[in-house]
């Protein structure tokens, strides 16, 4: 029986368990190994890197690294909420605070680190928090009241993460940094200046060169007193100014520790006692504490290799840890920041390539060898999509292209290789996922061997992309590359009746001008059509000609055929348009009266409108007659069309609003109402960075800045929620609408049937870069055409329900039976909470 004890159940401690299990294919029990993990936190290991997701709705459980029951399944004994208080190295035993004694043959210390709390008076006051654990976050959440101001002490990587969390809590943030610039370990002065400007534009106050003397508590809140005699009054203080290795246990056990903290380890990560290892943020290797997860994972792997070799009776493993690249890329409050290789080259002869675009807020610095042939490192702020490729160029000492400036200057139309082409040049040994140590060769081999076709498959098979997730774009490129090599770029034809993609058919119809389904299928297809191609062709015809869909009702899905949403029991629901969610008392009364008259169930929708359920098919024209007389229009809730443009109340009422979001939402909704698309379209406009309208979860979303509007595209909720990406920033209204015109027309023309913008964008070759080129820089030269086509659709808008209500032959279609005016006798309702609902099926 061999005993392994792991002290600490953080990310690195957990990784050690995973790595060890992977190296022992027969499992622990068969080898007579007892693995005990002791964590002092009340819960099993969780993802601290994505801690701020906690404020975006992630639960503590979402952040957990292993599914419930995982430890038991693997035969691991997990003790949570238990703290190791003593190591008896002579007896090879650890003792916990409950008095429990555990013998060990291998002892792994993965005690991690604690937040560094600057030694100034007042840090004990209520309202001062560390930013480190889920408990810290829960305490912050309980204390915070929206609109309050919080000071974040620390302007480094961790401090800015904490500032993001503060914003997510609905607070105003002031970042206080001792150094004269933000992120001093990663950025140079110019990069830091640009980051500062960007964060300030998002409403974050940045105070640099500030040394906090003390924190005072008063009746109105907390006051930070600085050594320069200035002060900052806040409601809350969050400390995230660095880490302090948790080495107290090792120190007490007489293991060697560093003067400024950290358990001294050699290249085998052994402490001064060779039966005791230390990994992660508690370990001091070559005078260096590594505060990132990737080096911690590498240490975990190295120790797991040594322990596994010993357990299996193999010769000692030569797997060592020899230091780690501190390159990092992250998104700070929506701003991409990356620093890789040697970002400063203070000791190394080098030449610098600089690109600074203050207009767009982009800063790029590349350090080249003096002969200009190799890349040494660099800094990216505001745009870091080339990070992975640049990092690989440093790590693999790849020769630079003849014009290395192409690596920093944004590509122009027709110039440069397509996105993703870069990965083809990487050697197979190139480390793509540094968290999990997976190389390009491993990934491509897995794609071929296991016939993988998507990112989840790659993640499952290779674990690449499961750590920080930074390499996922590269995984995508590798996948595309491998599938292309296999000749697997399959043409997605519409269905058995059309040997064309939706895009091809769209182009044909636009050029040749067919206006009915029969013309289209006679010319380009075979057979009678089906439930896939009929609505797809109907959508194309609607986008091209913008004619009334009711004129070709038999090729529409049932919702478009009856211009209402079919519900359980076969009745329909009715949603009048309420642009921007703004509605008068009189309009509310009319909706109420109509609902009462037809006994309709009422519900407020997620899109800030009112849904009336339980209308029989023959009642629909009668209901709409009244709504239209009161000035309402169709809400197109039934169509693959623009649904709503949600808005927050904006600057007219809200004390935080910086622009009139309601006014703009109404303008946007009225512009695009009735627009047919491959799938439904949702939008929103928020009046400030707090984003109450949730614009980043929409197909296109607009967020006010103090300079204009930021336009986001490609978001959606649904089964696979996805945040929208920033397309362009600080736009005036007219430009914003022009970009939306172009974006929507490009999507409508090229997306497959029933493909939402998020999926379309995920699969768009070249991704967001390409889309930005097309929409902002007009790289295809189609912008004017897109705008003109959209204007034609806007100009020919008609309310479908008005036309139906006014046309007797169209109204006649709304009946239950063709041989009698009777209504469907099987429709039945049951009462519930003072309204009605259909019988359950």
């Amino acid at each position, binding site marked *: 029986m061999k005993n392994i004890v792991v002290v600490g159940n953080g990310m690195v401690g957990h990784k050690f368990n995973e790595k060890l299990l992977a190296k022992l294919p027969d499992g622990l029990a068969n080898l007579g190994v007892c693995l005990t993990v002791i964590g002092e936190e009340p819960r099993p290991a969780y993802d601290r890197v994505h801690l701020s997701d906690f404020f975006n709705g992630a639960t503590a459980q979402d952040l957990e690294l292993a599914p419930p029951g995982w430890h038991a399944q693997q035969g691991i004994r997990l003790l949570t909420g238990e703290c190791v208080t003593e190591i008896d190295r002579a007896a090879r035993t650890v003792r916990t605070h409950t008095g429990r004694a555990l013998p060990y043959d291998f002892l792994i210390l993965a005690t991690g680190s604690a937040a560094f709390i600057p030694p100034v008076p007042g840090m004990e006051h209520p309202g001062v928090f560390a930013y480190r654990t889920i408990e810290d976050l829960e305490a912050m959440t309980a204390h915070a009241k929206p609109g309050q101001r919080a000071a974040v002490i620390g302007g480094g990587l961790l401090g800015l993460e904490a500032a993001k969390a503060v914003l997510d809590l609905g607070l105003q943030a002031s970042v206080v940094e001792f150094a004269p610039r933000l992120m001093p370990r990663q950025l140079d002065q110019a990069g830091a200046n640009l980051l500062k400007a960007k964060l300030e534009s998002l409403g974050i106050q940045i105070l640099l060169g500030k040394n906090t003397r003390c924190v005072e508590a008063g009746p109105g809140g907390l006051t930070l007193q600085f050594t320069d005699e200035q002060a900052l009054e806040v409601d809350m203080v969050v400390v995230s100014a660095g880490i302090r290795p948790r080495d107290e246990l090792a120190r007490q056990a007489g293991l060697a520790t560093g003067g400024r903290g950290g358990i001294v380890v050699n290249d085998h990560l052994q402490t001064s006692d060779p039966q005791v290892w230390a990994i992660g943020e508690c370990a001091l290797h070559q005078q260096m504490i590594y505060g990132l997860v990737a080096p911690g994972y590498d240490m975990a792997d190295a120790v797991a290799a040594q322990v596994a070799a010993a357990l299996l009776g193999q010769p000692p493993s030569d797997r060592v840890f020899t230091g780690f690249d501190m390159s990092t890329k992250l998104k700070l409050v929506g701003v991409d920041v990356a620093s890789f290789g040697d970002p400063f080259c203070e000791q190394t002869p080098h030449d610098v390539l600089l690109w600074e675009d203050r207009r767009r807020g982009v800063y790029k610095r590349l350090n080249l060898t003096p002969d200009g042939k190799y890349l040494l490192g660099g800094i990216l702020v505001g745009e870091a999509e080339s990070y992975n490729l640049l990092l690989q160029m440093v790590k693999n000492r790849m020769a630079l292209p003849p014009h290395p400036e192409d690596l920093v200057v944004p590509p122009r139309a027709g110039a440069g290789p397509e996105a993703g082409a870069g990965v083809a040049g990487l050697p197979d040994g190139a480390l793509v996922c540094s968290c999990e140590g997976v190389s390009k060769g491993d990934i491509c081999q897995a794609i071929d061997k296991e016939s993988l076709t998507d990112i989840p498959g790659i993640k499952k098979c290779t674990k690449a992309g499961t750590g920080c997730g930074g390499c996922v774009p590269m995984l995508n490129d590798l996948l595309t590359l491998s599938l292309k090599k296999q000749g697997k770029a399959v043409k997605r034809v519409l269905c058995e009746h059309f040997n064309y993609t939706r895009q091809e058919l769209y182009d044909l119809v636009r050029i040749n001008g067919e206006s009915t389904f029969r013309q289209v299928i006679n010319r380009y297809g075979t057979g*009678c059509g089906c439930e896939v191609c009929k609505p797809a062709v109907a959508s194309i015809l609607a986008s091209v000609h913008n004619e009334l869909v009711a004129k070709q009702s038999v090729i529409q899905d049932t919702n478009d055929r009856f211009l209402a949403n079919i519900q359980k029991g076969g009745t329909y629901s009715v949603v009048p348009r309420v642009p921007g969610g703004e509605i008068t008392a009189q309009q509310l009364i009319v909706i109420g009266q109509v609902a009462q008259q037809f006994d309709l169930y009422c519900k407020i929708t997620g899109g800030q409108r009112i849904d009336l359920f339980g209308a029989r098919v023959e009642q629909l024209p009668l209901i709409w007659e009244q709504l239209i007389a009161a000035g309402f229009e169709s809400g197109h809730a039934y169509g693959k069309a623009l649904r709503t443009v949600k808005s927050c109340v904006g600057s007219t009422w809200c004390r935080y609003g910086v622009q009139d979001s309601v006014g703009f939402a109404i303008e946007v909704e009225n512009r695009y109402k009735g627009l047919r698309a491959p799938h439904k379209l949702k939008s929103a406009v928020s009046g400030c960075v707090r984003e109450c309208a949730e614009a980043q979860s929409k197909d296109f979303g607009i967020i006010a800045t103090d300079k204009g509007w930021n336009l986001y595209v490609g978001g959606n909720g649904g089964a696979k929620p996805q945040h929208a990406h920033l397309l362009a920033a600080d736009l005036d209204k007219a430009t914003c609408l022009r970009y939306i015109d172009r974006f929507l027309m490009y999507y409508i023309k090229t997306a497959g049937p029933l493909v939402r913008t998020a999926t379309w964008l995920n699969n768009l070759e070249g991704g967001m870069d390409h889309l930005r080129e097309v929409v902002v820089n007009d790289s295809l030269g189609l912008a004017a055409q897109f705008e003109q086509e959209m204007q034609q659709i806007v100009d020919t808008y008609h309310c479908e329900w008005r036309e139906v209500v006014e046309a007797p032959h169209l109204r006649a279609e709304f009946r239950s039976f063709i*041989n009698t005016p009777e209504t469907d006798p099987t429709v039945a309702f049951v009462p519930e909470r003072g309204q009605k609902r259909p019988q359950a099926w």
Partner: protein
Amino acid sequence: MAMNEKSTFDGLKAPQAQLTWVKAAPVSAFAENGSGCVLHEGEQIAVFNFTDTGRWFACQNLCPHKQQMGLWRGLLGDQGGEPKVACPFHKRTFSLETGRNLQGEDLCVKTYPVKVENGMVYVGIETSEGQ
């Protein structure tokens, strides 16, 4: 064997003899490649006008998947040349020739014969003897 087959055949044939033709509606009441629903003594029958092939079909209006009255509101089409209807609720598709579910599920709808005479559409409804 031969005898058995014959008697089975006769057994099936017997009720077909008792077909009542129910008047649905004039052809002009149906949209081209459209549909309608006939209510006959509480029975709901979906009738489909395949204008392009000049054929008519009918089946029960009830979708057997979730017991919803709605097949007449579904989209018409064909699969490998076999005429079909797709239920508007969850897109189950049924052959209008055999009534079988085309996704391979164990669901089936009853089909009815249809005839057109003098511009009028009729649906054939089986009645047992004595009715």
